[in-house]
């Protein structure tokens, strides 16, 4: 008798998995719904053109040499190569006047490598998120 109930239970137990049909799925359909990044996410850099003094500290501390200095409006400003950057936030931590910060913008997609180098004007645009 115990053998028969055990056999019946093992035959019908797998059908209990059908209860998953009535549960919320684990996945999100990406372009239409997405998880917003949290406060403090390390995304694209934002530069404040009035505060920056051109002191060269962010270029020296970057571990991958992704920041370089260029001439813009008669002074030196940083430009960032997003292909080499590892988004570690050391440039924000060591900046003496807090001019360069990392924002929450995470969608940085492009098809050619040249447009991944952002000059000072592109860096000063407000982020989209």
């Amino acid at each position, binding site marked *: 008798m115990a053998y028969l109930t055990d056999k019946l239970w093992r035959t019908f137990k797998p059908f209990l998995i059908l209860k998953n049909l009535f549960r919320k799925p684990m996945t999100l359909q990406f372009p239409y719904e997405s998880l917003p990044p949290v406060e403090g996410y390390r995304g694209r850099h934002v530069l404040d053109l009035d505060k920056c003094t051109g002191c060269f500290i962010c270029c020296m501390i970057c571990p991958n040499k992704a920041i*370089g200095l*260029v*001439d813009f409006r008669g002074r030196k400003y940083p*430009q960032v*190569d997003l292909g080499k950057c590892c988004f570690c936030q050391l440039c924000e931590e060591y900046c003496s006047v807090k001019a360069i910060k990392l924002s929450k913008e995470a969608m940085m997609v492009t098809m050619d490598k*040249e447009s991944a*180098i*952002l*000059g000072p*004007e*592109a860096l000063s645009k407000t982020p989209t998120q």
Partner: protein
Amino acid sequence: MISDIESRLKSKFPDSLLNVVSKDKRITFSVKKEKFYSILSELKDIGFDHLSDVTAVDYIDEQEFELIYHLWSHREKIRAIVKVRIPREVPTVKSVVGLWTGAQMHEREDHELFGINFEGNPNLAELFLEDWEEIPPFRKDFDTRKYVKEKYYQEDEQYPIVKG
């Protein structure tokens, strides 16, 4: 327990131990090159049956390599560190594969990256690098940046000026 080990080794090898330091359950021995294999097998008989690592450091100013053996004893929970110096011109040393089997792979990695020769190791073929023709890369007279610039970037990289 630590003082027993120290006194036992000091009485058996009075001339070969250069410096002994013991602190917080760790003993560090600096030994001369001639008897280091007997010291290691004596330590294995005492109970140090786990070999963690075989490290090599390149002191180019003193023209010497330093080999460091890290040992651990499961019964007594003590760590022992043995340091040996060998000359840089002829870096040849006896292999410890007979005592611990796991040492074979550590010695193979040190041979490929530093050029140290271990006598008695059954297989010293290349491990990570393929078709390598320069000097062993982890030595101090090999400049990584100069090698990469000459081989992969034909001129100096300039930051391109981007307007806007």
